[in-house]
């Protein structure tokens, strides 16, 4: 689709405006279309249309575009890593196909549309608009799109521009019995945006992207009142202009929305300083079929029965639409410093993270990659510009592997991000490096640390490259108590390898993990899993079976169903086991009271 847009001279102009300004909100004010986002983003892959990995004519990997540090650079070792890890071959391509004729005609509820028009809410039933909002970024969703298979999609899209628009839409939806599916940034990885097959009513995607303003900033209380449709990077940029930040930086912050964070209980990488979304929100306003739910004051904490915010946080669009959020803000930190530490093996690295958590001295972010990911990170090193740099790299490698005796097939890396005033950061840094040294860790430089964080933004793009060459993969996460982390990581990785083998995957899969968050009582672990699917008749099915097995393994080893991705429809089957029958019943009874007609019918969670 995006390809066709480039033929439209007006759209090209919009793009130019966008690049010049670099902000959705301003672009919108300048009169860009309602579906502006879908014009600069891929419809069947991750992120911006202009940014992608490809193998050029010389067979070298490069990353296109200008948005990221890696953009426009050649990555000389990616090809070897890619071929070596997956047994993939650049001769064997599996490019996407484009087929929009498969979109079924919309099932429209005419009276609803008429009332909507009368209320003055923008709407569309253009197939492109509908397809764009019919999916998140689960492997099966993207794979199907690339193959041109399009299932049930919303019948129309509406764009409320403020809280009262949402109230009108919800009221009309109840009146005409249409199904509403809230849509924020579209970065779900839990099948949460998938339209339920059994839904016979007209499905309306409620796109919050136009509700993207910061309504006020309160410097006395350090809070900001923001419309929930705002995208993470816009929120951060606009607050920065006032000298503030929220500090909430999930890996998807370029594309995900505030409302989405609230609805899924999101977690940001700097939660050690700023907290997760549940710690950041002070007040939430949500429109439900029963009316608006909100607290009466902005008190920092309340003892008024169970916190009603916790019915909203993680409700995954089943109860209503979050329209406005008051959240904490902080002055932009004076100083930021990246860092990294190399450990001789994963066990030592984990022990170090545990000690850091014990002493409660975790920096803004601390992450630990296992050896496979360390190697992968290496493969993404751009071409070095000078002989001196390459000499220096060689020297570092020599020092670590030969002089310090680290086995390159066992060593692992922690990346760090410190924030605060300069003096404290340096002091903090020393404390953390001292702990690391006790566990055999060697400081490995700021640059490696920074690259580690940059990779989290581009890694999602890499899946699209894999899919061009018969490689599919995905990530999933869990949280687990400290005493079980190592066992869980080992067992899950091994289970993945074994399941792949049993299901006829020809080449051993990439099965790797990293710690992305530490807590007092445990850690959040992220798994990456990818394999070469040549020779398999139904690769997505195999993929799903393996992922299912991996999740069972996680639960059997004391891990949680999800740390921050949410449940959606993908992990629904384990909800009862996870929260007990009574727990599930409680949630169901809330749903029944708030939304007896099942207007918010995405069928997530419950």
């Amino acid at each position, binding site marked *: 689709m995006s390809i066709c847009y480039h033929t439209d001279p007006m759209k090209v102009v919009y793009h130019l405006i966008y690049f010049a300004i670099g902000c959705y909100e301003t672009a919108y004010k300048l009169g860009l279309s309602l579906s502006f986002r879908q014009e600069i983003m891929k419809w069947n892959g991750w992120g911006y249309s202009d940014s992608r990995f490809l193998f050029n004519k010389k067979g070298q990997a490069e990353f296109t575009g200008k948005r990221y540090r890696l953009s426009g650079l050649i990555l000389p070792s990616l090809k070897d890593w890619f071929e070596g890890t997956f047994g993939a071959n650049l001769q064997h391509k599996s490019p996407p196909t484009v087929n929009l004729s498969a979109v079924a005609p919309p099932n429209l509820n005419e009276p609803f549309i008429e009332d909507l028009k009368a209320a003055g809410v923008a709407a569309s039933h253009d197939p492109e608009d509908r397809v764009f909002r019919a999916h998140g970024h689960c492997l099966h969703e993207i794979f199907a799109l690339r193959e041109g298979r399009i299932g049930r999609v919303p019948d129309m899209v509406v764009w409320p521009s403020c809280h009262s628009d949402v109230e009108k839409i919800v009221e009309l939806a109840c009146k005409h019995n249409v199904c509403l599916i809230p849509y924020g940034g579209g970065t779900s990885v839990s099948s949460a945006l998938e339209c339920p097959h059994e839904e016979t009513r007209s499905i309306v995607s409620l796109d919050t992207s136009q509700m993207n303003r910061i309504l006020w900033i309160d410097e006395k209380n350090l809070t900001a009142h923001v419309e929930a449709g705002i995208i993470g990077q816009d929120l951060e940029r606009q607050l920065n202009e006032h000298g503030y930040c929220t500090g909430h930086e999930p890996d998807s912050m370029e594309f995900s929305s505030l409302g989405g964070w609230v609805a899924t209980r999101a977690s940001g990488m700097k939660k050690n300083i700023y907290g997760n979304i549940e710690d950041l929100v002070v007040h939430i306003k949500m429109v439900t079929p029963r009316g608006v739910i909100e607290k009466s004051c902005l008190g920092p904490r309340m003892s008024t029965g169970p916190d009603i915010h916790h019915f909203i946080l993680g409700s995954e669009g089943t109860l209503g639409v979050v329209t406005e959020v008051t959240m904490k803000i902080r002055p932009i930190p004076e100083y930021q410093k990246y860092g990294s530490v190399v450990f001789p093996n994963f066990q030592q690295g984990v022990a170090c993270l545990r000690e850091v958590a014990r002493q409660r001295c975790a920096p803004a972010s601390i992450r630990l990659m296992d050896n496979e990911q360390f190697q992968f990170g290496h493969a993404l090193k751009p071409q070095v510009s000078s002989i001196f740099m390459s000499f220096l790299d060689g020297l570092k490698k020599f020092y670590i592997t030969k002089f310090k005796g680290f086995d390159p097939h066992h060593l692992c890396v922690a990346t760090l991000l410190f924030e605060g005033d300069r003096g404290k950061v340096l002091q903090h840094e020393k404390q953390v490096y001292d702990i690391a040294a006790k566990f055999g860790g060697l400081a490995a430089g700021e640059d490696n640390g920074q690259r580690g964080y940059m990779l989290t933004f581009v890694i999602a793009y890499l899946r699209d490259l894999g899919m061009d060459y018969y490689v599919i993969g995905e990530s999933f996460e869990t949280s687990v108590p400290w005493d079980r982390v190592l066992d869980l990581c080992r*067992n899950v990785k091994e289970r993945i390898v074994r399941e792949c083998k049993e299901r006829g995957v020809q080449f051993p899969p990439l099965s790797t993990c990293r710690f992305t968050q530490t807590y007092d009582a445990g850690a959040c672990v992220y798994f990456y899993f990818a394999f070469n699917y040549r020779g398999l008749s139904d690769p997505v099915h195999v993929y799903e079976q393996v992922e299912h097995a991996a999740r069972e393994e996680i639960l*059997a080893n004391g891990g949680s169903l999800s740390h921050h991705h949410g449940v959606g429809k993908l992990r629904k089957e384990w909800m009862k086991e996870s929260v007990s029958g009574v727990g599930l019943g409680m949630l169901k009874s809330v749903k029944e009271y708030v939304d007896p007609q099942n207007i918010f019918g995405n069928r997530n969670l419950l």
Partner: protein
Amino acid sequence: MLKKRDDFEDILEERRRSSDLRYALRCYTPTLYRGLVPCKASMLKSIVLQSDHLQYVIKQVSSESGESTEGVSEEASLILDEMAHCLQLSTIRFFAFTLSKAFKRLFRSVCVNEEGIQRLQQAVQEHPVVLLPSHRSYMDFLMMSYLLYTYDLPLPVIAAGMDFMSMKFVGEMLRMSGAFFIRRSFGGDKLYWAVFSEYVKTMLRNGYAPIEFFLEGTRSRTCKSLTPKTGLLNIVMEPFFKGELFDVNLVPVSISYERILEESLYARELLGIPKPKESTSGLLKARRVLSEDYGSMYVYFGHPVSVRSLAEGKINRSQYNLLPRYIPQKPSADTHEFLSDAAFRLVRIQEENMVLKPWVLIATLLLQNPDGLDLSSLAEQTDWLRHLALAFGAFLDWPDHEACSEVVSCSLALHRHLLSVSAGHVQLSVTDVPQVETTPEEAVFHQAVVVLSCASYRNQILHVFLRPALLAMAMQSANSNRKDDVYNGFNFLRKVFSNEFILCPGDSVQDFEEACYLLMKRGVLQVLEHEIVMSASGHSTLAFLSSVLDPFLQGYQVVCRYLCEETNENLTEKEFIPAVRSFALKLILAGNTCYEALSSDLQKNALAAFLRLKAVRKLCLFTFLFLCHTGGKIPTQKPILARL
């Protein structure tokens, strides 16, 4: 039904050709577990003592008993000292040398399935391994270590009964060859259990060495498999349940002897001549055994059984999520059931892989014909039985291209001490009776030794005939041909005999179907929708099958009669065996029952069965155990009596 069996290799062949000394000193480089955490035996001790689990239990015990934690720790350390092995390669080399000499004298051949060894080699690298050999002789674990040394596999550490320890020097030798010693009973001793289980788990988790233990708990004196114990099995499975290991491979090993070294020793023990205490001098006296021919020995390494796949869908591992893993947790009811089921399955695998020699068939026939058989008819019947056994899936090692009569006479020769052969007539009989006058009672005992020795060979093949035999017996006693009646009878017998034979609890329908299938395939039965009908030619097979179990039924009947007729008063458990024995002796002298009723093993099993079926009740725990009849006893026993 006949599976393709692996080929065997005789390891003694090589030993007879080359130097034992060079063999004992050869370079030993075992295949290792890929997740091995290198660790010395001495380090092992401190890992165990400092483990969270043991520290927790020490604190618990100390707060319960009021003793200081140092005192309890000291105690734990002593327990560990008493228990721990100190595996040394040099001792293994010593054994490799001496055992080579001994084995060559004792056995014609020691046959090992090479494919099993290859499978084990693979399994050892992937996950920690637990070796589960059958237990028929002291020889078993010496042989296991010897074989693993021979095939360059990691040497196992072996859970052995404390009774060995009392053998001076030998106990220490065994310790140095990898044995660790556990007390026979330590039911209530928390600290002991903690030390013991942590010791085993640490070795398993670190991949220190394969763990070897006997599911049956002790040597089977009857050559029947014993009801498996689940305690140690639980210990080796727990690291998997708790996620500490990805998987554990269980390798059932079947060790069978053509002639058992302890043959007559066992028979005497069963007849009440107590087991001589293990002592070094006793072992030296046993040197006499070295001069005899014990035929061949077979070791079959079964397919590794993954605990993970066994537990799939049966164990919900998340039940361990809510308690820190160092806190000991009693297995849940589900886990218990799983452990017992797994243990039974493993023992059945052992049984199935047990190599049977032709003598086993001959012994079966001779026991059914106490007056003996003509050689020619023995050969003929043996051949018939051979085909039956093969059809039922017996793992029979029958020499190729040899006439049946030839095979029979070879077998008779090896076991001549149990037989008298005159004028072509073979009979089980006492061969070396002292010439002095004997009382009739003594004569009975002498004959009983022969019969029980012989029965121990028949018992080796019982697992092949068991299910069809139960069916045959059920059909005989059922009032009708109706399938439900027969099944009820079958199920009843199965319940009565479930202490005697390996019958997985809960498998009764499966067993019944298996029995029907086997007999139908053989043309003995026709199984219709509601009826089971014997075919015209089936009579002899059914008669044979039911008489296989006949001695057991008779034995149980004796116990029953004893309980009904002789004891009006309460009876202590201690008095039970001698009393039943003299009761049985009287019946034998009167010609009313068979010799096997004298077996204390059978008597104990019968009592346990009656207790389980609530025909008899235990009144009081502790030293004085009283037994009394309950009202339920008569109806339960009547059917048994009725069926005789």
